[in-house]
């Protein structure tokens, strides 16, 4: 549905050239919910704006639904108003001089050949129903609350029935509670309408909960592209591992196949990859995968023990930091555990919960 090939965007700024997008290639399938995740300044929004035609790439090729909309070699650049794309902006971009109805009707009124008034009325009404804004038609758009404006922006995006919708951090201006509710609503709506969605966010929770596939970006490049679960469980680089969720890094050295030597002791791992014995690696372990050693888990996994240095009660978890040699390791325990500083804590980690990173 969407193909981006070797996209480069170079900005000329006062401080010199900035390579905002550095050779990105992406393929999004029809009906897929695809997320670009990364810290601010990683080039995710620029990539999205190139798709929309709002930004001029320096080089590369972009195809929408099999049609070339941008090709630097052939000098093709279809302007945004000729691309059949809907977009939801971070600022919502609700036109303050129009009513709710006219905001949604705007794309329909720009269609050529003209759409009949009756059909416009029907389609706008349906779109407003879908986002639960019925009854607000004649209200001036600035008189809506933040959450309503967000839904209005969504209604405007869906009413033109484009096959593709681009979403640029659409939830970041909502308060925390509303954001959680809207996340799933938004995803199910896009899925119900069978649209292909490209979603840009810096929020890992949004990426993990909404996306079919996540591309993590850093410094203008896609560093890893997989389904959400894998991004979390099988990060391929230190950047991805630390950007999503909490994680412990330990320096290690492969001493035998399936065994790595770390300051916390020898640890067993399985990751189905070949590692050269003697290689220097980084061992990554999620805090929640370190569980208190007991009879049940004694059979498998490696033991790590250390002195508790800090305990923080977070309600649903008990976060502690234990000192292992010169290193510190974070452990996430169930709040029923009673632990206090200076206690000796023994935890175990399963071989499949250990990630070996080459860096």
């Amino acid at each position, binding site marked *: 549905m969407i193909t981006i090939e070797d996209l480069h965007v170079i900005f000329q700024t006062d401080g010199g050239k900035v390579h905002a997008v550095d050779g990105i290639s992406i393929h999004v399938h029809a009906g897929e919910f695809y997320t670009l995740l990364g810290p601010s300044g990683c080039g995710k929004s620029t990539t999205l704006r190139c798709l929309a035609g709002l930004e001029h790439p320096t080089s590369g090729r972009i195809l929408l639904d099999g049609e*070339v909309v941008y090709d630097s070699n052939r000098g093709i650049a279809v302007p945004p*108003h*000729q691309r059949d794309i809907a977009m939801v902006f971070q*600022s919502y971009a609700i*036109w303050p*001089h129009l009513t709710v109805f006219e905001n949604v009707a705007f794309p329909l009124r720009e269609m050529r050949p003209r759409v009949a008034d009756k059909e416009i009325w029907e389609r706008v009404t349906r779109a407003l129903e879908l986002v639960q804004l019925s009854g607000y038609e004649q209200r001036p758009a600035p008189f809506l609350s933040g959450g309503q404006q967000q839904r209005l922006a969504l209604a405007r995006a869906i009413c033109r029935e484009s096959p593709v919708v681009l979403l640029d951090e659409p939830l970041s201006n909502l308060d925390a509670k509303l954001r959680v509710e809207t996340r799933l609503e938004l995803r199910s709506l896009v899925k119900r309408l069978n649209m292909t969605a490209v979603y840009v966010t810096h929020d890992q929770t949004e990426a993990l909960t909404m996306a079919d596939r996540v591309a993590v970006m850093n410094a203008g490049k896609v560093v890893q592209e997989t389904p959400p679960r894998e991004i979390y469980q099988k990060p391929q680089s230190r950047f991805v591992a630390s950007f999503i969720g909490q994680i412990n890094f330990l320096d290690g050295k492969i001493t035998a196949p399936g065994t790595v030597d770390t300051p916390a002791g020898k640890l067993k791992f399985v990751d189905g990859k070949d590692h050269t014995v003697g290689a220097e690696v980084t061992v990554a372990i999620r805090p929640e995968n370190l569980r208190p050693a007991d009879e049940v888990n004694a059979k498998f996994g490696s033991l790590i023990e250390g002195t508790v240095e800090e305990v923080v009660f977070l309600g649903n978890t008990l976060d502690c930091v234990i000192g292992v040699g010169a290193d510190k390791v974070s452990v996430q325990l169930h709040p029923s555990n009673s632990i206090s500083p200076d206690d000796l804590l023994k935890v175990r980690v399963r071989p499949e919960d250990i990630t070996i990173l080459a860096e």
Partner: protein
Amino acid sequence: MSATPTTTGFGSVEAGSKRSIVSQIFPWLVLALVLAMTITPIFSLIAGSFSLSRLPNEFSLDNLGLANYYAVWVEQRIDRVLWNTAIYVIGSTIFGIAIAVVLAWLVERTDMPGKLWVYAGVPLAIAVPGILHSITWVLLMSPRAGFINHAWMGATGTSTPLFDIYTMGGLIFAEGLRLVPVAFLMMVPLFRSMDPSLEEAAATSGASPLRATRRVTLMLMLPGLTAITIFQAITALENFEIPGILGLPVNLHVFSTRVFNIIDNVGTIPAFGQANAAAIFYLVVALIISVVYIRLVRHSERYAVITGKGYTPRQIRLRGWRYVALAGALLFLFVTIVLPFLVMLYISLINYMRQPSWEAVQNFSFQHYERVLNQPRAQKVLWNTIYMTIMTATSVTILSFIIAYIVVRTRFVARYFLDLLAFLPHSIPGIVLGLALFWLLLQFDILTGASTFGSLYALVFGFTVLFIAYGVRAMSTALLQIHADLEDAAKLSGAPPFRVATRVFAPLLMPTIVGIWIYCALLSVRFISLPLILSQGGDNEVLGVMIWYLWDNGNISSVGAIGVVLMLFMFLLALVLRFVGFGRQRSVGAAL
């Protein structure tokens, strides 16, 4: 181009790339246009200053030299004009700024009653044309026949007049008053945006209220105040209407009148080359002050977005002085608005020039209105003025939107240069641009066979150049406050550029568009320096020029009749500006 034209769901590929080429070339075309509008007149001015031919249309590359500069500098002592100009500019700026500061302080930071009158009245003062102000002062304060002097001499029996308006003091008084309205409008936001917590912090640090005002408020306002002062100095330097009526008759010359005098002196042959040389000195002085101004405001003005913080500054209690303050403010409004109108009305109704008296009032008649307005010349001039005003205001508004859009919203490589280029004409005095266009259009007509010289379009072109700096700045400020997403959302909704302009920008920018349009209309009626030089008889004579010549010929009653009609029309425009344009009236000042 190897792509085959295909019509697809995403539009024609061919059309897409063609548009892309257009959108790449368009900014360069605009740049070329602005370059042509600003640089070519200056270039022809410089070339003309070296021309030794008697007339501009005899310009030839074989007859060039430095004789004009020698004549201006050594024989005519331009340094004396420079000295006069310095006293005039500094004097009137100090006088005008002082009044404006007091007025702005009174309405923003004290509990003076009747503030609304001041807010409503001051913009009206902008609408009074400078030439009518000067004529009013002459009628009131000319040494012998001035109404005030005459009454004074009659009452006291002395033969020494109370005032003499034909002096440097008179120039400073008249121009100083003219600077107040715009200075006031620029200062109001400055006073308003002052966060009172800063003063409170000083107070809790142990500073007395007076010290807090001096150490904190004044110091914080100093950069803004300096910028406004320099801006007003440029305005004074460029003004022609005041020194032209009050200084020129007694050979009290400043730059603007000197340049005009060289080509329009009864009894001598116009020396165009010398006028150009003098104009070059004038332009250099104006440019130097403008550069100082640009450096001063470069970082502050543009990105000083109005904060939405709704604090009310602490108001100082004037107690018994409240009504004294109000009386002072109303006196200013009376002197700059009501008095000129009354004087014009008076001279328009009397049959012959006489001192105001009950007898004069009894003989009032409207015959001058009938006579003047029934003249074919007056009708032609009226129509010329309206047509020129509409064309100027419209072209400035459209061009400023295009330039501001390129500067603010695109990544066009030369956008900062374009911005600077559009600001440049701000420092070209009207008389200098008039002279430059005089040369340019003559040469242009000789080369192309067109007849732009002496046409109304020469005025429209000249005024557009003069006002574009103002238009671009006001428009950029407004555009910066419209989120870019609003435009992008319209594009993605399938709206082509023209539809985005009409459906999103036009409604959102409407207050600014109306504001710029009316303000430019006001200015183009007010300005007489540029049309005075470019005026070539009936075809492009406008009201300001007509008043100038009527006054020159001593046709005072006609001046009065036209003056009254003109003032009523200008007040109407100013009222529309206040109620429709700019949303908040303070943006007029903020945009300047």
